[in-house]
């Protein structure tokens, strides 16, 4: 799947889910691989330091004795972020606090297959960066 096809797929997701501001795919260091966003996206969420926090958190969460961590939902005062682990890639769905969290998780499941294919390519090229 080409990069433009990913962005087109993410744009479709943005249209479908009310309150969703952005779909961002990053690597372990928070570097953006692919992104689709609305103008409502807060600038701070595009910072690699913010996006990389989940890769650290999921690595630690996977050590809690419940096998690998798949996802995390973070609720803030005005926003919510659904993080998905497809190591070596990570997907962040950034939405308003009033958005449908269950729907975001469902959409995350829908994105699992195409993202997994992209992750497989990354894994081949960077075999050391894999948290799974």
């Amino acid at each position, binding site marked *: 799947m080409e990069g433009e096809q990913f962005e087109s797929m993410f744009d479709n997701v943005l249209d479908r889910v009310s309150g969703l501001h952005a779909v961002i795919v990053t690597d372990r260091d928070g570097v953006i691989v692919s992104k689709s966003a609305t103008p409502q996206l807060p600038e701070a969420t595009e910072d690699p330091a913010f996006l990389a926090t989940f890769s650290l958190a999921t690595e630690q969460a996977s050590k809690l004795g419940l096998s690998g961590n798949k996802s995390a939902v973070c609720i803030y005062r005005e926003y919510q972020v659904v993080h998905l682990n497809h190591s070596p890639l990570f997907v962040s769905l950034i939405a308003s606090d009033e958005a*449908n969290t*269950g*729907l*975001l*998780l*469902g959409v995350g*499941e829908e994105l699992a297959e195409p993202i997994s294919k992209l992750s497989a390519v990354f894994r081949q090229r960077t075999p050391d960066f894999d948290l799974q």
Partner: protein
Amino acid sequence: LLYRLKGCGCLSKATIDQLPREASVGRMEKGVDGVLEGAMSLPGVQGALAADDQGLCLGAKGTAPAAASGYIAALAHRASQLEPESRFSVCVESEAMNILINADSDATVALYKIPA
């Protein structure tokens, strides 16, 4: 939750009164579980699901997949926008199953029923 089951159109008040009620402080999950279990005993009902206002699954029984809670809540939300501040029910019909959805500001209930 019981009111939402009635709103699905397949329960009378008399039937609802017969459903088990186990809600009490400290056993919230058993209360939801009991109501869904009671719904499962109704004729034709293959599955029952309850979701909160954020689309997260409160409970699912039978053929109702827990993963559908977000989609069901989203359907109910979209339907409510057609006619704000009015009560409504949504019925999704297919050859194999009818899904009856009823919601208010707090919770959404869906029943998976075999088509008559």
